[in-house]
């Protein structure tokens, strides 16, 4: 059966929410009243019956990725300022979400990222230089989605959530145990495709974890203008799937909540919706001026909740992390940043002939003609430049 039967639906409605210990009524699909937190802003463990704290080794390893993620964001911002990249939508402040989304998945799983999820894509294993091809402006995508099972970074909002449902449905039809984790932001929850994706996922009972990073802003528009629902996770019950809310700056809670959602999907439990409460610490992109719509004080309030700082405090207090460990992670992050810097400082030769190459599996006669036209133009230009080197300003002469 490709669609949920009534029996399935009945089972679904009575199903346990993420982390619940016993099933109750339909309200079991509702999220926690406050976001799940396992390590508070001061770096102390908070006990939660439903969500076990990941072991120290997992947390330490994930912390290393967090340090690298922060460094990637800082490095990419610097490269935009230096003119080496066209634009960079930073996930500064959201790195815990980025790391957790990537590390909870197995190799056979799929990740569907947005344009702000560069760190998640790199954490999943995609070559940073291939990821940044899009933002450097060489091509609209730089990596092979099949290599690490990471879809292209979506720029239209929420459209990729439906693709995630399709990938999961195809896997399910073939009897594979693939889980798909599909990311979006708070703004995208207003899009029709968000609604359609959740509804399709629920009706077809497919293994998708929808992961909203609620960073409180859609460019300039605050969450209160997107939705007046009690939380974005509350939307899940409307589709008959469980919703959960989690502190998006708490790496431990994210790993636990997302990990359980992924396991549940893999075990045939169907889709779920996880909302992470976090904050976009920087402007939408380098082209945006955030001072026009929020105050420095607003941003300042989130500084003590920083996900990197919190994990460092926790791990240091438990003696899982010391100065040497910190230096080792920092060196690792430095080397990745250096590789990005060096790679992006190289001039990449773009090939205009490629413009016509992939539009169809086989070029149409029209595209063959147009490719030839461009080739001749460029050959003429090259010949002209060879005969008479100009200073490039001829075109401005009246």
């Amino acid at each position, binding site marked *: *059966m*490709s*669609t949920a039967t009534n029996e399935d639906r009945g089972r679904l409605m009575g199903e346990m929410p993420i982390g619940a210990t016993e099933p109750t009524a339909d309200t079991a699909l509702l999220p926690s009243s406050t976001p799940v937190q396992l390590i508070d802003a001061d770096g102390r463990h908070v006990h939660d019956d439903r969500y076990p704290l990941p072991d120290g080794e997992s947390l330490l390893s994930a912390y290393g990725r967090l340090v690298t993620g922060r460094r990637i964001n800082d490095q990419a911002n610097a490269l935009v300022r230096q003119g080496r990249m066209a634009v960079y939508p930073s996930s500064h402040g959201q790195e815990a979400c980025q790391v957790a989304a990537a590390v909870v998945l197995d190799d056979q799983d799929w990740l569907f990222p947005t344009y702000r999820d560069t760190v998640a894509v790199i954490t999943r294993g995609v070559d940073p230089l291939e990821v940044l091809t899009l933002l450097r402006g060489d*091509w*609209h*995508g730089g990596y*092979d*989605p*099949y290599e690490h099972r990471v*879809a*292209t970074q979506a720029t*239209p909002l929420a*459209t990729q*959530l*439906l*693709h*995630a*449902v*399709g*990938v*999961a*449905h*195809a*896997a399910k*039809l*073939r009897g594979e145990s693939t889980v798909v984790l599909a990311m979006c932001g708070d703004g995208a929850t207003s899009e*029709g*495709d968000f609604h*359609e*994706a959740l*509804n*399709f996922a629920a*009706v077809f009972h497919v293994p998708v974890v929808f992961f909203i990073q609620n960073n409180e802003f859609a460019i300039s528009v605050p969450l209160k203008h997107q939705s007046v629902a009690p939380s974005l996770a509350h939307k899940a019950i409307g589709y008959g799937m469980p919703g959960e809310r989690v502190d998006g700056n708490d790496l431990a809670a994210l790993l636990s909540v997302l990990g359980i959602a992924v396991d549940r999907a893999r075990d045939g439990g169907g889709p779920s919706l996880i909302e992470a409460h976090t904050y976009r610490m920087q402007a939408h992109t380098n082209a945006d001026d955030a001072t026009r719509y929020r105050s420095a004080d607003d941003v300042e309030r989130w500084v003590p909740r920083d996900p990197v700082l919190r994990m460092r405090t926790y791990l240091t207090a438990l003696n899982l992390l010391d100065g040497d460990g910190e230096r080792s992670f920092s060196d690792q992050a430095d080397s990745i940043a250096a590789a990005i810097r060096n790679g992006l400082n190289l001039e990449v030769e773009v090939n205009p002939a*490629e413009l016509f*190459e*992939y*539009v*169809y*599996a086989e070029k*149409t*006669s*029209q595209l063959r003609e147009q490719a030839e036209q461009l080739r001749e133009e460029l050959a003429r230009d090259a010949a002209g430049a060879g005969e008479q080197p100009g200073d490039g300003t001829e075109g401005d002469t009246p």
Partner: protein
Amino acid sequence: MTQTTDAPVRETTAAASRSTSTSTFAKALNAALADAMEADASVLMFGEDVGVLGGVFRITDGLTARFGEERCFDTPLAEAGIMGMAVGMAMNGMKPVVEMQFDAFAYPAFEQVVSHVAKMANRTRGKVRLPIVIRIPYAGGIGGVEHHCDSSEAYYAHTPGLTVLAPATVRDAYVMLREAIASPDPVVFLEPKKLYWSKEDVDLAELRRTYDEGEAPRRIGRAVVARAGADATLITYGPSVPTALAAAAAAAEEGRSIEVIDLRSIVPFDDETVCESVRRTGRAVVVAEAPGFASVASEIVARVQERCFHSLAAPVLRVTGFDIPYPSPKLEHFHLPSVDRILDAVDSLQWED
């Protein structure tokens, strides 16, 4: 561009007289889907009412019973959802055929079509190709109410990355749908609603054999001479082909020999067959139902004039729908290209010079 003489000429009923049965256009589409699903387990059919009901036009009749609900199934009523899910399924090894119930009800899926279906191969440098067929019952002439008769081909033809097909005969319906499903590229497959119940002498089993054994001439990117003639060329596709043929037959009675080109494939466009004909006849009229402004018909006129200018004895004219929203049932016959309107256009091709 030197190839000028081998434009395919449509097989006539006489040539197909060996066949022992007739088939409707709708039945040919149904058979093409069934044969493709039988031949390839990754071919799936889904959309609205395509399951137990068999589609509002019965094109998917019997597929769920034969192949199961995993292969032919109903979805929630949401076209962007259908299209977006098809993208994901195609990414993951399937060959989805989706039905948009009517032309104008495909618009909610437009963003998925334009931003992803059409662009994915280019975005990923060919790593991800989406072999999706988007079946759209389209165009008018059936007395349909608003939103059921749009000629939406220009929206798709204007979107690089899509193949856009519009069959006009029972044979082409079968072979072109098989070709569309086999294509590595996404195909918008426009099914003229008014032709669903048209019939031809055709043996579908034999047609299947010729397709399976590679004997059926390729249709994607190839126009066909639907009626040979010497004095002027009517260039048309989809629902307007029978109208153009009727006009050519009427003109013959008046002593004018009119050639009719059935494009079949809007994208890729067969410049060669079209231009060979126009250079030979020296006169051309483009016939299409869609509003003429900024239309496929406009593009054809532009191409013909760019390429055949020195062979033309008269300006290339168009007979199209007016630039109005599709009319209500009692008014549609004023809007649609008619035999008389086509003959009037042919008459004005400066014959006296």
